[in-house]
């Protein structure tokens, strides 16, 4: 058999279509993925590692291992953090393979997501319904009455959508700089809308034109994590919605959603994490006299491993005007995994424990954990109620630390 390099393609090229044997056999068993895998670190179980999972999937696909509930178990244990991908010398497209296998398992009823997950999945497909269903939650949140361990504090708009808010600000301020299309997301828009509003303000303040395409929907990350169907439908929906607008870039303020969106928008403007984009543009720094607050920055897995961005740009973090540093183990997974903290709460808590314990002795008053992904923020928020951290701390999106507030002036090219 000739090596498959003859046509210059690697397994990476082949993964768009059905999973085939060659993709599964691209793993060279070197084991480099073990030390970066959160579940291997937790359990020390070879099967609970990328190499182990690939081996089980490959042996099953080749008929050497019958279907087994333990294969199903180990498949469900994966956080989906993708830390294994940059560690892999053979460039095995683990994330893609996991997505296929998860879906196959749901179809074959080897994986049975609970009713809450299914409900969330079907709501995610219907953004308007999702927004409506969570209206009471937005009200409660606004009044600080929503006490759920994952729901961090904030004041979302209840009735005004980000799309209409953006239109209003665009008309008021008329920025003239680069144009971006903004993914408002499903959970972000329906529950954490204040982050979207802050994003719009920061973009426009920095002279960036913002358009929120109508007809956009969930990026599909939820379906990728859970294996529920309709990923292609959602991707197509967004592809169409975003294609309608000629822009310089598509931006997302959720690293996980941004990663998923790259699978929809494969030709056309680049899909960028909004902070990474702002780092390139250069942004107006906030002025603040606050020298007491300390910010600990955590890096979402899907930003650094998925989107393969180095991190949140230093100039963006400096622009917050606050004293910041990277949290210890900032590049390790927090255990959120999108839906993992709901589906595998014990694992998720244990993974978070390693990351969060530093907060007990961290310097600063107040202290803020800042990141660029709302599901990571949810996970960090739960550290207090999980008993991992016993002092108060705030959880913020970095964009909120850059927020000029309702009153601001656009930074034009000839005035800084």
């Amino acid at each position, binding site marked *: *058999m000739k090596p*498959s390099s003859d046509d210059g393609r690697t397994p990476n090229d082949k993964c768009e279509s059905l999973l085939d044997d060659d993709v599964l056999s691209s793993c060279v068993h*070197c084991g480099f993925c*073990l030390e970066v895998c959160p579940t291997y670190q937790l359990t*020390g*179980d070879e099967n609970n590692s990328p190499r182990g999972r690939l081996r089980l999937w490959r042996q099953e696909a080749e008929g*050497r291992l019958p279907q*087994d509930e333990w294969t199903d178990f180990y498949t469900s244990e994966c956080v989906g953090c993708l830390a294994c991908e940059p560690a892999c010398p*053979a460039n095995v497209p683990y994330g893609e393979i996991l997505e296929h296998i998860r879906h196959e398992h749901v179809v074959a009823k080897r994986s049975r997501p609970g009713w809450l997950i299914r409900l969330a999945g079907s709501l995610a497909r219907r953004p308007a319904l999702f927004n409506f269903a969570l209206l009471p939650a937005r009200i409660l949140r606004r009044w600080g009455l929503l006490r759920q361990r994952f729901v961090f504090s904030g004041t979302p708009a209840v009735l005004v959508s980000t799309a209409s808010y953006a239109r209003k600000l665009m008309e008021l301020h008329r920025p003239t700089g680069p144009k971006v299309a903004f993914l408002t997301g499903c959970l972000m828009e329906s529950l954490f809308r204040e982050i979207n509003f802050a994003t719009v303000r920061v973009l426009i303040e920095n002279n960036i034109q913002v358009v929120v395409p109508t007809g956009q929907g969930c990026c599909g990350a939820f379906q990728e994590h859970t294996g529920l169907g309709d990923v292609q439908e959602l991707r197509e929906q967004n592809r169409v919605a975003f294609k309608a607008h000629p822009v310089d870039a598509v931006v997302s303020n959720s690293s996980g959603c941004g990663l998923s969106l790259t699978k929809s928008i494969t030709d056309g403007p680049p899909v960028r994490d909004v902070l990474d984009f702002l780092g390139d543009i250069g942004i107006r720094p906030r002025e603040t006299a606050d020298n007491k607050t300390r910010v600990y920055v955590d890096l979402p897995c899907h930003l650094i491993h998925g989107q393969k961005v180095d991190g949140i740009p230093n100039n963006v973090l400096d622009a917050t005007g606050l004293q910041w540093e990277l949290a210890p183990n900032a590049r390790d997974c927090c255990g959120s995994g999108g839906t993992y903290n709901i589906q595998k709460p014990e694992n998720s808590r244990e993974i978070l424990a390693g990351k969060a314990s530093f907060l007990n002795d961290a310097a600063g008053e107040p202290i803020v954990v800042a990141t660029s992904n709302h599901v990571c923020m949810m996970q960090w928020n739960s550290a207090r109620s999980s008993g991992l951290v016993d002092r108060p701390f705030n959880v913020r999106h970095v964009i909120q630390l850059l927020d000029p507030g309702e009153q601001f002036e656009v930074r034009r090219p000839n005035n800084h």
Partner: protein
Amino acid sequence: MNSGLLKQQLDKVVTRGRVLTSPAQLAGYNADGLGYKSFTPDAVVIPADAEELIRVLQNAKQLDVPVCMRGAGTSLSGGPVAAQGGVVVHTSALRKVRTIDPEGFWCEVECGVPLNQLDVELKPYGLFYPPDPSSGPVCTLGGNVAMNAGGAHCFRYGVTSNYVLGVEAVLADGSVHRFGGPAGGRGPWREDWKRLMVGSEGTLAAFTRFWLRLIPRPEKVWTFRATYGDLVSAERAIHALVAHESFPVAIELMDPRCVAMVENSPMAVGLPKDSFMILTEIDGPTELVNARVDSVAAILRQAGSDDVVFSDEEQQREKLWKARKVAGGLMGQLSPDFLVQDAVIPKRALAELLQLVYDEADAAGLSAVNVFHAGDGNLHPNFLFDSREPGELEKVEQISKRLMHRVVEVGGTLSGEHGIGNDKSDYMPLVFSGDALRLQLTVPAIFSPNHQMNPLKVFNQRRFSSASEIANRIETSDAKTDSRCFVPFLDEIDGIMALSAEATAADIADQAKPHDLRFPFILDPKASLRQQVEASGYAPASSRFGPLCDNIVGMNWKLPNGRVIRFGERVVKTTTGYDLFRFLLSSRKRFGSPVDYVIRLRNDVGMTSVCDLSGDVDRLKRAAKELLNSCWMHWFDAVDFVTQADCSQTQLRISINCPAIEWNVVESFLSSFATSQDLELSIRRDTLGPMDGCPDLVLKTTADEVISVANDVSTRQDWNCIGIIAAGVVHFYKNENTDYDSAAFSESIRKVIQHHEVALHQIGGDWHSRHLDSIEPSEVEAKWIDVLNKEFAKP
């Protein structure tokens, strides 16, 4: 095999860890780094800690199935797999770095500590543990010790066996023994059993923890990359680099097929596709290394390269290494399976072996790419194939067999760093037969006679059977003269010489000097090599080059039955079979006697100078500490603490062999060092280096204890002392008027031993005197020695 019963038994023993028995759980453990062969275990145990691991082994007899230890499962030789079924014990939970002792230059680690994790924890101390197999991000120290792992940088720094000070081993009967310790000696044993443990591939014992030697990190590193249009030019570069005073830490060669593979991929770095690529690296103190950069670049150019690039900047250096580092993973992307061989050959045989690989691969219609650790002759041919295609695996195995035949014929060895495992055990008959094979198999007979520990590894004869009959376990094959005995030779390219054990310094120098080679371990120019080995396992040059057993690599040995067989190799890097060679070298006069030695010569790059720093003991202690923490240590042949019985002088004596062009840099460092330490410096140029004579007593302790022990004994008990500080060794001498046969003399030695023995044994150190018998073995050790004695004496 009743798996239900097995699970029941294991569940009783492993209460805090995990027991895995479902088919899918076992399927994940059925391979190591060699993916194309599967061996499914009957159960997997993940002990929660050392205590549970020990309990599994305490119950091994009742379990009555093979026990296979597994670290990270990155072995490339089919090592940590259940070749005969049984229980795989996964050490993933034992990953604590227990102690780092920067003063003593050692650390204590559990067996499951990943190599890179150790490095991260050592960094703040300015120390490192040099062996660097490329699986460093994941491989465990346990696996490293079991396989005697090497790595790209082992050309100068050495392999795992050069750094293991002590091993805590759990035998198949559940007994736990500490062989050595922080002091790196024997501990309270007559023999140096840790020598057999390192490289034993999980077949003798499970390991729970190790004591490892540490050295200071290099201050400055320069990496060079060059390409060559043909092998002859590349070899010219390699040979010149090997002889150069910069003593590169690594010399890597990639063949044109490997280069083409990289350049045809998205990882391409812009190398000419038909070229051989050399990657080399030098390191050390900044001033010294910077002074060498131009001459190394010149070597590479003069050999015939017109694209020599080099850098000392971290990111640039990573880029230079990139082509070499991506090669392994790339093979995975191009081919469903690949098999990598690990032969070590005399460097002069490289062209021939490469051609053989090409011819064989081309004839079989398979791709083969070659990577060569050029410094120590370690060749890695990689064969790309698809195990699903009928016949391809067999083709590759046949090619490997023919390759190994030729490797052994040219004087090489089967494995330099990957180990034999289950994958190369078929080739062992090429290397071991007759007495040699029988004595190799004696080693597992000592500790695990029914081969319960990792059966079918290393030797195919090692098959586990429930009925254990010790007497029948060892094959008695034809007792004939060993045709593989060494004949006298000098290989000036590898710096290896075989000569009589009765040879003296003059015999060595006669042959070595014309090639600018030397053997810097001479204690007494009039004594034979054998006498020196009997006197001490060390010399002052051990500070730089390690103990004698790292500088004598093979020997012809006369058994008590009169036959002469060979132990060891004529190449410097081997993990083929049990290290009986080093074991016997440490044992000295027991189990037979040496006839010839194969010694490793070192470059003679110029003049040898001896520099004395004089001052009081406290200042010398401080100065020694500072010097030992500096990477200058790697460039001084010796740094000794010298004191006379009458305390008339105490000094640090530094020996260095360096070329004229570097003398200014060296002298400048020594002068400013002397000034900063408030010591007097005096220099003797062009000497033969220290030759203190054969010591009357040798104590092995930790580096930070050397000066105290030497000073104490010297002042209170009237001895002259040479403290080989970095090696943790003190040599003691009575003055020349001593009557060596007198009872008073023996008594004076015993007095020193009595005073220090208990403390030494506690830290895994030991004592040795050529005038006295060794310690009496304990009951346990006596049994082991008995097995050896019987087999060695067998007619």
